[in-house]
């Protein structure tokens, strides 16, 4: 039996980083194939190649034995590859039914749409997913979970022979997940080839029959049958090492007064009863899955999300931070954004223009004048210390590698001498070497007295770096874990907090 979909020896590079290196994936009809890998392993690049968003630099993609080359996602869909992506792709003002049937609204531009029939057919797909809502409702009126189900329905309605699902259960309850799995098993029995991408290993083991693991842009394994593997085997392939032994000794708990304290804080974003304190020189980790509310909490500290309850204290004094400018210039609080390209850096500008942005105000003379020389004097040492690789400070930062870009986005806060640095998902999509470097850097900053709040969903990173870990889920703090660098114990403790809240 020939493969339904085959990616052979695909390689793909972007400026500064090789995302995929000789990667292969073989998908047989009538199977549910798991695609696993850590953040930055190359999963999303591979998915984008399969769904037609990118074309591989080398290697080829074959569909039912025929080589294909998709110029855009539309072609992939017409060729019979359906996909449910991580981000929502629905037209919010259209009805559910119209979104589901959007590919098949009519034969030509001037066809009249029979909405009765359209909504009837859509209802069929909704019922399949146990979703009993009126297909005539606008998508904007749905919850996030319902929207995810509608997107799944949309992919199912295409009745493609290849189906790719990227974190399809991220917003679903266990019940809804089981319904979905029932459908996927039925499709599999029908001969459909399914690619299932998920971080949740229990789901993968419960549903899939084959697995391909990517690590650092390469295959750690390709199309291995899952029943021959144990969970620890899979994890080892994903992180490339045994569950880690502590590299750093646990640091003694600081005893100075906290720099930042949150007391029973509630926010307009939905946080409830958040209490935490961060001392100078301390690294507090904030662990949680996507949607837990961690970045929103950071934004609340910066003043971009409104605080509705509780109080916030800096150095023991209650403060009301109105904006990030306030946070930085008045309280020395900085934020390394998780969205490096949209929020962490100004890609259009130079390295100097990015590194100095936090210090312009303090370096200018009375009239507001400021020469590049002063900015260079302040930032060059930091850039050098961080070993940022760039031919000159006037290089457009968009041309640097991801790792170097990230270093600059941290450098600007160091140059400003912040007292508290909030770091959000610092090593997503960053190469291993820079990752280790940034971990060392965070430690060094803490040693020098900076208070650090580390937000990450990368468990090994959390255990390696943080002194004390807070577990967040559903916009509240579920528990605290002291970090003795024992990976088994700490990761178990964290996950038990997460799962107990899911069961609740």
């Amino acid at each position, binding site marked *: 039996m020939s493969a339904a979909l085959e990616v052979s020896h695909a390689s793909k590079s972007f400026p500064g980083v090789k995302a995929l290196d000789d990667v292969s994936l073989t998908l047989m009809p009538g199977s549910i194939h798991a695609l696993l890998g850590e953040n930055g392993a190359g999963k999303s690049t591979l998915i984008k190649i399969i769904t037609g968003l990118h074309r591989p630099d080398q290697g080829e993609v074959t569909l039912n034995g025929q080589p294909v080359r998709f110029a*855009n*996602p*539309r072609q992939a*869909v*017409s060729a019979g590859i359906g996909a449910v992506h991580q981000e929502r*792709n*629905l*037209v*919010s*003002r*259209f009805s559910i039914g*119209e*979104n589901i049937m*959007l*590919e098949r*609204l*009519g034969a*030509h*531009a*001037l*066809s*009249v*749409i029979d*909405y009765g029939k359209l909504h009837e057919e859509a209802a069929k797909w909704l019922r399949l997913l146990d979703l009993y809502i009126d297909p005539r409702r606008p998508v*904007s*009126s749905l919850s996030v979970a319902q929207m995810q189900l509608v997107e799944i329905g949309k992919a199912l309605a295409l009745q493609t022979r290849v189906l790719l699902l990227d974190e399809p259960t991220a917003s679903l309850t266990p019940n809804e997940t089981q319904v979905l799995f029932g459908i996927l098993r039925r499709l599999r029995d029908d001969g459909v080839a399914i690619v299932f991408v998920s971080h949740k290993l229990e789901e993968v083991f419960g549903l899939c029959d084959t697995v391909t693991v990517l690590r650092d842009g390469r295959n750690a394994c390709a199309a291995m049958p899952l029943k021959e593997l144990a969970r620890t085997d899979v994890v080892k392939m994903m992180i490339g090492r045994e569950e880690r032994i502590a590299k750093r000794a646990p640091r003694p708990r600081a005893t100075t007064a906290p720099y930042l304290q949150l007391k029973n804080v509630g926010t307009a*974003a*939905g946080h409830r009863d958040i209490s935490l304190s961060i001392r100078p020189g301390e690294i507090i980790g904030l662990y949680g899955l996507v949607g837990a509310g961690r970045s929103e909490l950071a934004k609340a500290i910066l003043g971009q999300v409104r605080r509705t309850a509780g109080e916030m204290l800096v150095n023991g004094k209650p403060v009301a931070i109105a904006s990030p400018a306030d946070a930085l210039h008045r309280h020395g609080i900085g934020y390394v954004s998780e969205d490096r390209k949209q929020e962490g850096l100004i890609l259009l500008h130079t390295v100097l223009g990015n590194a100095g942005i936090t210090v312009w105000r303090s370096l200018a003379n009375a009239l507001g004048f400021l020469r590049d020389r002063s900015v260079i004097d302040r930032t060059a040492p930091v850039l050098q210390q961080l070993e940022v690789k760039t031919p000159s400070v006037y290089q457009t930062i968009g041309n640097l590698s991801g790792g170097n870009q990230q270093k600059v986005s941290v450098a600007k806060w160091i140059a400003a001498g912040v007292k508290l640095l909030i770091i959000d998902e610092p090593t997503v999509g960053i190469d291993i070497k820079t990752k280790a470097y940034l971990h060392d850097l965070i430690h060094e900053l803490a040693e020098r007295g900076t208070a650090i709040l580390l937000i990450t969903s990368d468990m090994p990173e959390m255990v390696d770096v943080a002194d004390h870990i807070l577990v967040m889920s559903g916009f509240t703090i579920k528990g605290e874990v002291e970090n003795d660098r024992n990976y088994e114990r700490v990761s178990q403790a964290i996950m038990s907090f997460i799962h107990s809240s899911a069961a609740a």
Partner: protein
Amino acid sequence: MNGDKLTRAFDNDWIGPALVSLVAIVVISIFQPSFLSPFNILVLLSAIAVNMLIALGQLVIIAVGQMNLALGSIGGLVAISFAAMMEIWQLPPLLAMCGGLAIGVAAGMASGYVIARTGISAFIITLAGLQIFKGINLGITEAQPFYGVPQSVKDFGNLAMAGPIPWLVLPMIVAGVGMWAIFNRLRIGRYILAIGGNRNAAELSGVNLDTTVIWAHALSGLLAAGAGMMLVARLQIGHPAIGEDWLISSFAAPVIGGAILSGGHVSVGGTFFGVVIIAIITQALVLFAIDPFVVQIVLGAMILWAVGINRLRELRVARAKA
């Protein structure tokens, strides 16, 4: 559930503007009874008819998430071409009308094509288009109107069909119903709204972005052409300045009618009442002998007001979901 239905009724785009129109008519006719005279109604309906096509021409571009600055100059170019074809080439009005519509469609398609293929913002392309079409207009007319408009055309633009209802409302009804059908029942209209609503989702779902954008601009050009020719009929000459003052009102009416400028949500009914409100206020200012330039101020203020309200509605929806 009943209270919910009531609020949902008011969530409709056209109810608000319709009520405002009603109130305005009542209030004005109390102060100036001549407002409701048959002659005045004729004048009012004629203005509404022309402005409805102008507003619809912009509405279809707003729907796709863009803006058309060349609307007026396409209208003007078609207007003088229409008059020229009848005066210089002696073409019968119907044939000249077809020619005019064709020019409008062609001009729109040209804009749409450049926008779709180059990815350059519609603002700049239509700004260039505005200049180019205006330039061609002035080049042909040398700022002189064409006076040779046939009587039948003049009658169409000035006489009543029945009672106080002018013939001009016919094209308005055709355009209004047609655009409503397009936006609500035809695939092309849904595709236009899909692109305006979520361009990525539309593309992933197989919508051909380029073709749909070109269609939208072609429709816009068609409507502009219609409005231009209606004005030739009404004014009884082919005046090169036709279209020069369409910019503000072409946006004001859709916005008052609830259109969202980022695209994806329009209301033909709301736009209609937006046109009505603007026409009523303009007329009223004349009747009360208020300086005509106050119209500009009022239009600007109405745009701000309407945009502010639409924005509040949007924020309310977003907050309710959170």
